[in-house]
């Protein structure tokens, strides 16, 4: 019988500016070495569903961590209250996110079981942030699950701090896996086409999969957007992608 014990716990790590920020981690207790996975939560926050995803990556054999990106605005608050506070404040600035993500990647690499390789994955607004890690953070693979505004332009008067990343595609340094629903509007199939074209033109390593009968948040098992066929295939693509690069 294989030894499959997993330790899951909340920790403090050093994020942007050396700030201590809250994070949730799950790690196999079997000896390594193994890769690490940085999970980036969706806009509704650092919630139970996201923590389940962290534990799933540990069950798949990775050291996994998710930083509470709303730690500073709402320490100790319930995820929905924290998300509401962050939204009212204009969202998470990219610079701060990058500092927190880099801190989490450093934390993963410092584990005695680390093989030195780290992948990122993000959902919804975290999909865009995962793409940003492929530009700004030392990651060896990045998975963008339906991130909006990687390309495209936010509407005029848009109150949140979200800047498109199309002009930064030449700086992408890690392979990118993109998983998208064809019924999504943000990102729309046209946005996905545009991003794919930019990655192709710049000679980047990428793999996109698009699912019919799926819209935004098709991985979210506790929401009506859940689409088991797309989510099951998506998980297989993620396992294969990380298997190759981590």
């Amino acid at each position, binding site marked *: 019988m294989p030894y499959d014990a997993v330790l899951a716990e909340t920790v403090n790590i050093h994020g942007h500016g050396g700030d201590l920020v809250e994070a949730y981690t799950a790690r196999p207790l079997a000896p390594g070495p193994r890769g690490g996975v940085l999970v980036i939560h969706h806009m509704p926050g650092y919630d139970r569903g996201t923590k389940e995803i962290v534990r799933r990556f540990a069950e798949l054999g990775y050291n996994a961590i998710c930083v509470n990106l709303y730690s500073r605005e709402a320490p100790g608050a319930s995820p929905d209250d924290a998300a509401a506070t962050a939204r009212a404040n204009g969202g998470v600035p990219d610079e701060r996110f990058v500092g927190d993500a880099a801190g989490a990647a450093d934390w993963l690499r410092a584990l005695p079981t680390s093989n030195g390789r780290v992948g990122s994955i993000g959902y919804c607004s975290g999909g865009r942030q995962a793409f940003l890690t492929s530009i700004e953070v030392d990651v060896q693979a990045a998975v963008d699950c339906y991130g909006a505004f990687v390309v495209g332009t*936010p509407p005029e008067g848009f109150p949140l701090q979200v800047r498109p990343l199309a002009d930064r595609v030449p700086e992408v340094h890690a392979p990118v896996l993109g998983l998208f629903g064809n019924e999504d509007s943000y990102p729309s199939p046209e946005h996905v086409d545009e991003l794919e074209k930019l990655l192709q033109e710049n000679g980047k390593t990428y793999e996109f999969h698009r699912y019919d009968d799926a819209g935004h948040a098709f991985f979210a098992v506790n929401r009506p957007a859940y689409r088991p066929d797309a989510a099951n295939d998506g998980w297989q693509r993620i396992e294969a992608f990380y298997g190759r690069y981590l």
Partner: protein
Amino acid sequence: MCTYSTERIEVSRSSGKGPAGWFPLSTATVYYDHPVHAPDAHTVNIDFLAPDRGPGARVAVELSLDTARELIAALQTTVERAKDH
């Protein structure tokens, strides 16, 4: 979709009641996005907030589009009638 679509207003001379009782409100955000609890994929969400009292000082609703439309009409009617009082 995760619309990010958010409207924000300053709130004055208004109060809300949360788990810890009544408190003065200072901000409200209105957005169409995923709900935490309501059964639709997207809802019109309103958060009445008092940031100086912490994230828990919040009165939140998640409304179906039909309900949000009815609420707009009811607010309009009530505000119009208030002129006569």
